């Protein structure tokens, strides 16, 4: 098993972990963490799988750089929303049901 494939597998696990976290965690900050874990997983798969033969490939690497910046943008946005929600409601969780 090459390093690429190994880390790609790690990526799959991280992705699954992240998705499960987003689905199951109620606390919004934790959900943001989970989303970041999920994203990192996808990034690892992108580079790791492409480099499973051991040759570095700049194309997925550049994609991941783009992806990391997008992820941080999304994270900051999510944090801003969470903090705003906390200011308004004093809660860091989503209400169970908005309207049936």
């Amino acid at each position, binding site marked *: 098993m090459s390093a690429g494939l190994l880390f*790609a597998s790690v990526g799959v696990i991280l992705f699954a972990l992240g998705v499960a976290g987003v689905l199951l965690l109620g606390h919004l900050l934790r959900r943001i963490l989970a989303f970041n874990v999920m994203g990192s997983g996808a990034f690892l798969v992108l580079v790791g799988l492409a480099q499973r*033969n051991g040759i570095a490939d700049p194309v997925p690497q550049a994609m991941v750089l783009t992806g990391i910046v997008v992820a941080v943008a999304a994270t900051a946005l999510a944090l801003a929303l969470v903090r705003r929600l906390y200011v308004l409601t004093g809660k860091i969780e989503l209400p169970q049901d908005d309207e049936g």
Partner: protein
Amino acid sequence: MKRLLVVLGAACFVVLLIGAMLDLAPASIALHAAVSANLPSSGVEHPVTAVLLNFRGYDTLLEIAVLLLALIVILAIGIDSTTDVRPAASPVLQALARLAAPLMIVVAVYLLWVGAFRPGGAFQAGAVLAAAAVLLHLAELLPGWQSPGLRLRLGLAGGFLIFLAVAAGLLFQGALLEYPPEQAGWMILLIESGLTVSLGLILAGLFLLLSRDDGDRS
């Protein structure tokens, strides 16, 4: 119940997907070879930078738009300023920050320059700039932002606009972002310089805007 289902689903997914990855034949297209082959006419020597700013420069253009957009959204949501007080920064931290900040700026410039040849470039340089700003903020040498003035907005959007202008300018004599090989080098450097400043400001802004409720007293 939901928990069990999700965990089971995730486990199945992991097993299936890793299994599928293990018996995957080699890809039929090797883009890294194409990148190496076209590197000389890309204007830079580092392949990742070549992909980021030339071969797939359009991705980067949109990505900067995403970043700028995130900042605008944070501005648009608005955060109530409150008067709560953060514990005062220690003098040691302040001294450290005063020392480190100029150094970090030098590092950023180096990273920007070196990006053409080896790992580094606008993103990393911008991140270092942002880190410097965050450090200054934590040391209470730089206040949190309220709503940015014109000059700051110009700084935030400037890098993106330079990028956009170069891209659009090139459209008039060919395709979008089609650099003439001999001018590619300086054009990319121009874009990267603009991006470094703007990325630094935006990334710092993400932090400074979010923590503005603490900084409004200064």
